[in-house]
């Protein structure tokens, strides 16, 4: 509706030229209006090279640089056409005496096509194919959809779904930070755990000091009386007991809190990932293997909470323990402390080197793992094909090959890890020996305040306390690297923008009438072959249209766009006069009932499957819908009736039975707009006729779009639309189309009736 206003303005739109181009033009344009422009990125030898072309009413300006400009008067141009190559296209202009080519990769295809469209309108020549005149407001919408806001901070474009928040700037924080953010709602608990951890660390450090006092003040205590020594022994023993009890209590509490936070964070993370998966468009799923998505929702999130909770808190504790141990050692005897810490650089170096190496390998390991599970997923989904073509051996071989590859990688990881492990722990234990030797020497030859047996005991305790957390830190490094690669994959999902999304000020209406309008709609799935080209059609409320055409003509694509499974690449689709992109997505789909070309049933009962679109429907309603879809009788015929489990993908049902259940599902949904994509293709003619009769009642008052190859299916349609290679080529009633010369519909119709007659004759 917003767009309608622009129509009245009409006239030219002046597209925003890039600043850089303005500079290069250097006033060349004066105040000529700009009709269109495009950037090109290839030269005549298909090498990367930038240039522009700007179209004004009288000339085309080719800009290579500020100095290098060519002007082509429109009057000289005889023809302009786009020639499509593989991965690159050419815009070819023919003038009286020369041929001018603009070459571009996929990046500038849309711009170039638009420029071509504008240019062809200026050319008188008949040989240049003319598209229908596209209203200028339409181009404006398209450009708006493509043009994006620019982020002030990073200078990158902000996609529309992000509502002006630059996703890059919010993402560029380090992955581990983002991870900790997941634990944010539990920060009081986390803080409590950290505090307890600190106290616990303190308690763990105390026994060393107590031990020293027991040895020096009670057991050895040469300068004291026996009774005083016994007193000291009892005193320090009591302290020791207190410390032990206290540290166990606090340690237990700490673990309890951490475990609670951990499970909650894991739950939230799984929820977040799963929820986000559902917001993603079909394009996302078309590319990915189900197996790898499942792993991300389950395994990867699991590994993450492990990290968030235990590793992160333990890192704090370990660092603290190291600090305590170091300061205590230096406090009691700095010479010994230096000796005790001397192996540290070696250990740190080895650990650091190992961590770096592991990080790379872990990422790879996952790729190998998911490639292996992909084979399983693929083969299990297609198990019928595997069996039918006796492919079991090949499938097993395929699996073994990847299983082997994974194992080899994993062994590589383990080798790196475990070869170095003994080195590190060996060094640690040797440094203990160093303390005994050097310390023993000091106690024997230089006994004094500092060099006592107790101090020696204290050192053995704290050297242990020092190296143990270092080992743990190294271990955490392993966890961190593992977690980081898991996090990367989880965030990969979370950061994938939903291509189809609800705008911030989306429209919710009470009800729809069901008027559908395509305006200059163009669409392509991959950006290469167009699936729909310049489709213009109006479907009135309550009308039933039949859609036919050859396989691959774009029929399913047509309805995919109405449901907004994808967004149009060009033009717009309106329902009741409003662009579908302006509606709330959920709301929009509630108004539409679809029977898809490949009916999908969930693992569950038949009743559950029929109810999918309207979980609150009563049993009566479910049965009525099933009756209308001619499914009631066979369902009741099953031993378990409506409670029959249909198995994954509805495998236990016949193709036609599946179709009828999905028709019932669409009927029960009670939509204003009904879409039937080959809904009855697996049914015999008799059953189809029965369903049609039931449907005629249902269809009245609803806008219905039915797709069928069997043309008899479309008898009830008020109007037929014939698609060919993505274009609407014929339109009208059966009577109008059936005798049309060279008509696609007429041909299809003749072939089918001919076949029917031949069968009848036999």
């Amino acid at each position, binding site marked *: 509706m917003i767009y309608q206003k622009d129509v009245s303005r009409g006239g030219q739109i002046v597209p925003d030229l890039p600043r850089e181009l303005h500079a290069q033009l250097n006033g060349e344009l004066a105040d000529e209006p700009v009709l269109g422009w495009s950037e090109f990125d290839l030269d005549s030898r298909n090498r*990367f090279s930038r240039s522009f072309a700007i179209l004004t009413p009288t000339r085309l300006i080719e800009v290579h640089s500020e100095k290098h400009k060519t002007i082509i008067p429109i009057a000289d141009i005889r023809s302009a056409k786009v020639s499509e190559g593989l*991965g690159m296209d050419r815009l070819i202009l023919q003038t009286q005496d020369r*041929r001018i080519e603009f070459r571009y990769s996929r990046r500038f295809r849309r711009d170039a096509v638009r420029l071509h469209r504008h240019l062809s309108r200026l050319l008188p020549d008949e040989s240049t194919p003319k598209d229908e005149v596209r209203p200028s407001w339409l181009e404006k919408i398209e450009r708006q959809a493509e043009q994006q806001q620019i982020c002030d901070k990073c200078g990158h474009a902000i996609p529309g779904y992000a509502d002006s928040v630059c996703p890059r700037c919010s993402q560029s924080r380090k992955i581990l930070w983002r991870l900790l953010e997941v634990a944010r709602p539990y920060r009081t608990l986390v803080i409590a755990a950290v505090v307890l951890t600190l106290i616990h660390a303190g308690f763990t450090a105390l026994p060393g000091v107590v031990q020293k006092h027991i040895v020096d003040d009670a057991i050895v205590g040469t300068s004291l009386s026996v009774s005083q020594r016994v007193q000291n022994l009892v005193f320090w023993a009591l302290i020791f007991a207190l410390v032990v009890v206290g540290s166990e209590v606090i340690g237990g509490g700490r673990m309890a809190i951490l475990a609670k936070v951990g499970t909650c964070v894991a739950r939230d993370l799984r929820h977040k990932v799963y929820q986000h998966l559902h917001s993603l468009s079909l394009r996302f799923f078309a590319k*990915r293997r189900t197996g790898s998505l499942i792993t991300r929702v389950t395994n990867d999130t699991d590994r993450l909470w492990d990290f968030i909770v235990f590793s992160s808190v333990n890192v704090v504790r370990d660092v603290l323990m190291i600090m305590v141990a170091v300061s205590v050692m230096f406090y009691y005897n700095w010479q010994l402390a230096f000796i005790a810490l001397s192996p540290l650089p070696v250990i740190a170096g080895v650990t650091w080197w190992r961590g770096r190496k592991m990080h790379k390998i872990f990422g790879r390991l996952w790729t190998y793992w998911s490639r292996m599970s992909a084979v399983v997923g693929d083969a299990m989904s297609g198990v019928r094909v595997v069996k039918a073509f006796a492919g079991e051996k090949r499938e097993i071989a395929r699996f073994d090959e990847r299983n082997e590859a994974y194992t080899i990688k994993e062994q590589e990881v383990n080798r790196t890890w475990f070869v170095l492990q003994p080195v590190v722990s060996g060094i640690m234990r040797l440094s203990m020996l160093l303390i005994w030797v050097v310390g023993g020497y000091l106690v024997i030859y230089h006994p004094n305040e500092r060099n006592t047996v107790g101090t020696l005991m204290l050192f053995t305790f704290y050297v242990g306390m020092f190296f143990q957390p270092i080992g743990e830190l190294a271990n955490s490094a392993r966890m961190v690297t593992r977690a980081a690669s898991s996090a990367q994959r989880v965030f990969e999902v979370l950061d994938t923008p939903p291509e189809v999304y609800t705008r911030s000020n989306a429209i919710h209406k009470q009800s729809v009438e069901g008027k559908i309008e395509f305006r200059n709609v163009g669409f392509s799935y991959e950006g290469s072959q167009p699936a729909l080209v310049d489709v213009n059609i109006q479907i009135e409320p309550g009308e039933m249209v039949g859609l036919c055409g050859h396989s691959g003509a774009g029929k399913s694509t047509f309805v995919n766009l109405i449901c907004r499974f994808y967004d149009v690449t060009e033009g717009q689709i309106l329902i009741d006069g409003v662009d579908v992109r302006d509606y709330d997505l959920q709301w929009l789909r509630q108004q539409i009932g679809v029977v898809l070309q490949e009916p999908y049933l969930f693992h569950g009962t038949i009743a559950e499957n029929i109810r999918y679109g309207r979980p609150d429907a009563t049993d009566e309603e479910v049965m009525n819908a099933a009756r209308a879809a001619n499914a009631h009788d066979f369902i009741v015929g099953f031993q378990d009736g409506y409670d029959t489990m249909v198995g994954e993908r509805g495998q236990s049902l016949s193709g036609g039975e599946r179709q009828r259940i999905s028709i019932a599902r669409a009927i029960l949904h009670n939509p204003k707009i009904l879409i039937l994509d080959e809904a009855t293709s697996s049914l015999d003619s008799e059953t189809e006729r029965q369903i049609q009769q039931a449907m005629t009642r249902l269809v009245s008052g609803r806008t219905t779009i039915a797709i069928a190859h069997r043309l008899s299916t479309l008898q009830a349609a008020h109007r037929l639309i014939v698609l060919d290679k993505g274009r609407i080529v014929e339109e009208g009633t059966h009577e109008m189309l059936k005798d049309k010369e060279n008509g696609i519909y007429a041909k299809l119709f003749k072939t089918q009736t001919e076949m029917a007659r031949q069968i009848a004759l036999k």
Partner: protein
Amino acid sequence: MRFILEPDGTITLLGTDGQTTRDVRFRRAFPWSKPRQYISVRDEKGKEQTMIRSLDELEESERTIVETWLDQNSFIPLIRRVEKVNTDFGYQEWQVETDRGKVTFRVQEREDIRFLPDGRFSIKDADGNIYAMPRLSDLDPMSLKAVEPVL
């Protein structure tokens, strides 16, 4: 089967049965696995007229015509060197040097990088352009270091 290069740059096919087809186009049937074999010759509408079994079976002059056409009408840059792969923003930004010059492109997701059975890679960028990358063993150490984290 003969090909004639017309002044306007298009190619006309003279079939063995004496039929001529104007403005034919060529498509490789196995662009990755067998780029020099099975080249389909199609008319404007995409209907196959004939098939070249192997480029090497053609005569020198014909082969040049076909090879030039293929080279002029297809664009799959071959990556020579990878300078940097930036993954900070949730997608990959590749800075590379190709046989067609230097370029920076964006790879939306890891599934857009395809491992080919022979060890090479095909990489699709956000605009739908395809780049070819040689086997890892054929890359220089710096490039290897740059791509390793994303493969």
